[in-house]
């Protein structure tokens, strides 16, 4: 370790002393507050908005509805690349609707007031008239491939078909075949800090937005377009972010509305999402109807799947793309010759999807890992053995998947072997107390680094390429270094790893390096925090920039010392030569008037292949083993052990990587056992607080056991892959398999849905409905 820092995190002290600044801690002079009036109907025509009572509320400054907003705001542009590339339609929406609401919770007006409480009172006093329209709450009718009636067809945002070989023929000749249905409940991100934005305009008409956000540069571009400004007239600054997990990406309608409210009121305006509002967003929900064909040895030859992905109301956020990533992720870690996955992404009248950690890759892991267990059970094969016979083998790498993803590196059988016998503490069933032990395993590959629009190329098919990251590294007047990067941290600590990478190139320790992130005026452009890119792609940009600066500093010192650049060494705080000549960096800065900052961009370098578009450039992988206790009387499941062996290529900072994995495992455990965003029969969200949406608490989880297995990523400079997304799907699948193990021995039905909350487990144990 090159760092002399005392703590694993560079900026730890400001947090433990309670000094770290989050968006809601910012209170500029003259601050006003915004609250949102939201639809109470899932689908309705707006017949009128009456704000008279709201304007009379003490402290209310202004009420803005859709008719007024449309005078000032251009439509919100689609926020995530080219939807046409993945068979989707391009949405463009107004920030506030004028004619029609499309989900309970859709913003219909905003209220600005002197205090947040006055704004909320004002919002509650706005009366909206509705004329109800038919609401689509159930995507069931979309399952299958039959042509849809026109009134259903217009709900299909995207349709996907991922194929390899001839699945129909292979299924017809398969020795064994299973027909299976799986479903995954809608769930959400639920960062402990909700979203928040603070906008202000200066006299020259320049907009500054402070935001709890993952993508400052994307937000800048979005706001410039909606508000009709040059990008140079928008500055986005991101304070400390209290967790994000996808929720804080661009495309949320409150982003431009806060800016508009500030312009109309001539004051800084802030909006902080309430917890109830935070629970509107979600993702991950899908239904699969699957046929799998295999032989007597357990080798799977064919997989056919019909999927429906209900993504809530159409929006401009990255949300529905996760449906494509789900379809494209099959058959996950396995080598299956004949694949036919058909998927419909369907707009419904519930709140729109936002990005959720895992970005669509997690549900396919659940589906494939459950399928592998059921194939093994049919043949009497051990779960590890049936996987061993089907995993993509190291000799097959790089491995092209049916969707055109290129799995770059992995040793999946080795990962599996390391978890297959883990954590057996001798726990056994106890029929007396009705507690039954189950174990389950799972194998996961996680496409990372951006590039999900991979596909076979062909005439007329546009090509795609890697998104770069950039960094600038400078020597400061006091002889320290400053790294400015276009990647951001949602609270993951990646700034510490970036400081460490820069320090290694600059012959110093990470204490001498300050990392600046999340400021569009100061940092070079980048993608912020998405697709596990900060270290694997952002890291090389920092390394290259630091390397360039080190050379420039040594050259400047050579001139001052009258020495040869090649014989000078950049060390802690100084440049030194072989004959004892030396100059401190502060002195060098003073005498040269400063060395120009070095800026570099980096993009991953997978091999060119004219037959395919750009793929995700690196794939982390992992294997998992979970042990649970199922209480047969109550249906309650206790997670007793969870082991993960993770391959994220070169580990830059093990403490940070393990932290990412811990968080992902906890989220996967929540998805497996308790987390579900439910809607009532009228389309209203029924999970509106942490009392209904059950995030794992400290006493719900065991101490996770982690191992690392490094296969370096061949197509990135550092050999690093991502950390942060892997673990969600793996934990979800291993825990579901563990519950199935226990339930199966008790004669229950196979696990085909998550979360496995007590009513669901009781229903599995008593398929006849006779729960005594």
């Amino acid at each position: 370790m090159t760092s002399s820092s005392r703590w694993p995190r560079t900026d730890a002290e400001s947090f433990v002393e309670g000094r770290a600044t989050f968006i809601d801690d910012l209170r500029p002079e003259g601050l006003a507050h915004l609250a949102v009036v939201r639809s109470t109907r899932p689908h309705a025509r707006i017949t009128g908005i009456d704000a008279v009572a709201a304007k009379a509320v003490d402290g209310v400054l202004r009420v803005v509805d859709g008719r007024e907003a449309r005078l000032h705001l251009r439509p919100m542009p689609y926020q995530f690349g080219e939807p046409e590339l993945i068979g989707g339609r391009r949405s463009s929406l107004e920030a506030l609707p004028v004619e029609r609401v499309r989900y309970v919770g859709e913003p219909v007006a905003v209220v600005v007031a002197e205090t947040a409480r006055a704004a909320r009172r004002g919002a509650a006093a706005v009366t909206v008239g509705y004329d109800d329209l038919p609401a689509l709450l159930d995507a069931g009718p979309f399952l299958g491939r039959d042509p849809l009636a026109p009134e259903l067809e217009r709900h299909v945002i995207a349709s996907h078909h991922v194929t390899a070989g001839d699945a129909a023929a292979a299924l017809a000749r398969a020795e064994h075949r299973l027909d299976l249905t799986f479903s995954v409940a809608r769930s959400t991100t639920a960062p402990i800090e909700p979203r928040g934005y603070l906008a202000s305009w200066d006299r020259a008409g320049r907009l500054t937005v402070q935001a709890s956000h993952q993508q400052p540069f994307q937000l800048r571009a979005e706001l410039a377009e909606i508000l009709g400004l040059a990008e140079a007239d928008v500055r986005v600054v991101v304070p400390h972010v209290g967790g994000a997990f996808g929720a804080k990406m661009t495309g949320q309608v409150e982003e431009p509305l806060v800016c508009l409210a500030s312009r109309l009121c001539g004051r800084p305006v802030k909006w902080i999402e309430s917890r109830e509002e935070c629970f509107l967003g979600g993702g991950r929900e899908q239904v699969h109807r699957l046929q799998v064909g295999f032989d007597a040895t357990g080798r799977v030859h064919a997989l056919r799947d019909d999927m429906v992905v209900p993504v809530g109301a159409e929006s401009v956020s990255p949300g529905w793309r996760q449906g494509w990533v789900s379809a494209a992720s099959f058959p996950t870690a396995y080598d299956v010759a004949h694949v036919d996955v058909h998927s419909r992404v369907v707009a419904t009248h519930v709140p729109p999807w936002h990005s959720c950690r895992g970005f669509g890759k997690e549900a396919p892991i659940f589906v494939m890992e459950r399928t592998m267990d059921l194939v093994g059970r049919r043949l009497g094969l051990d779960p590890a053995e049936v996987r061993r016979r089907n995993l993509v083998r190291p000799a097959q790498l790089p491995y092209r998947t049916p969707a055109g993803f290129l799995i770059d590196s992995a040793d999946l059988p080795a990962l599996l072997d390391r978890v297959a016998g883990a954590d057996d503490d001798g726990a056994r069933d106890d029929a007396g107390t009705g507690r039954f032990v189950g174990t389950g395993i799972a194998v996961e590959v996680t496409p990372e680094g951006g590039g999900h629009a991979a596909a076979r190329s062909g005439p007329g098919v546009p090509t795609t390429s890697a998104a770069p990251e950039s960094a600038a590294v400078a020597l400061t007047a006091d002889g320290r270094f400053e790294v400015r990067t276009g990647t951001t941290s949602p609270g993951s600590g990646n700034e510490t790893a970036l400081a460490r990478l820069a320090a290694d190139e600059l012959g110093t320790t990470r204490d001498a390096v300050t990392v600046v992130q999340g400021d569009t005026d100061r940092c070079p452009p980048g993608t912020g925090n998405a697709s596990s890119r900060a270290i694997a792609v952002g890291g090389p940009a920092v390394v290259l920039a630091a390397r360039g600066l080190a050379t420039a500093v040594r050259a400047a010192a050579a001139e001052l010392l009258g020495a040869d650049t090649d014989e000078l060494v950049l060390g802690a705080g100084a440049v030194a030569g072989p004959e004892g000549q030396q100059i401190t960096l502060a002195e060098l800065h003073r005498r040269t008037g400063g060395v120009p900052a070095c800026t570099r961009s980096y993009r991953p370098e997978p091999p060119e292949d004219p037959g395919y578009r750009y793929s995700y450039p690196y794939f982390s992988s992992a294997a998992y083993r979970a042990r649970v206790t199922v209480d047969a009387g109550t249906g309650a499941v206790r997670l007793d052990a969870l082991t993960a062996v993770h391959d994220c290529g070169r580990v830059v900072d093990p403490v940070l990587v393990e932290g990412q994995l811990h968080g992902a495992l906890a989220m996967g455990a929540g998805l497996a056992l308790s987390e579900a965003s439910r809607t009532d029969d009228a389309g209203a969200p029924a999970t509106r607080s942490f009392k209904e949406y059950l995030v794992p608490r400290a006493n719900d989880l065991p101490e996770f056991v982690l191992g690392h297995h490094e296969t370096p990523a061949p197509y990135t400079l550092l050999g690093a892959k991502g950390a942060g997304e892997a673990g969600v799907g793996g934990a979800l699948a291993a825990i579901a398999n563990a519950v199935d193990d226990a339930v199966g021995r008790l004669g229950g039905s196979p696990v085909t849905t998550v979360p496995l909350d007590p009513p669901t487990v009781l229903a599995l144990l008593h398929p006849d409905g006779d729960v005594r």
Partner: protein
Amino acid sequence: MTTSRSIRLTVDGITTDTGVDDDETLVDVLRDRLGSTAVRAGCRNGDCGTCTAVVDGTHLKTCLVPAARADGTTVGTLAGDGSGRWVAPLRRAFMQEYAFQCGFCLPGMILSAAALLDRDPHPDDAAIRDALSGNLCRCTGYVNAVRAVRAVRSVGAPVSGHD
């Protein structure tokens, strides 16, 4: 805005009189009127625990306390030194064990751990997990927070940093 009454609070050693409305909760008065941002609002519903402070020696979720009821109390937050002898070693242990990521839940995590150690200086792991169960964390899976409390439990005195 009109205020309906004046209350006196001593927060991290500083005594202030402030007007409050009847419907204001302590978390909002601490943050909005007194600028005490080491108390955070995560749910305003008593679920997440990041608004935890020590009110007259008792660890409370301040989003559940009507501000007027807190008149005359002494409030300790994570930012102050007056929240008990366990806070300093817990701060160091949370840094050493990398027991937080985004840090938003930290005020509640550390103060709840301190309350546990006040009651029981040598808790077992299950007691540590129970004591932290009122504080939601979405980043870490709690593994390192449990380790941090364990480190303080074993030493019972300030632990040093590591390199």
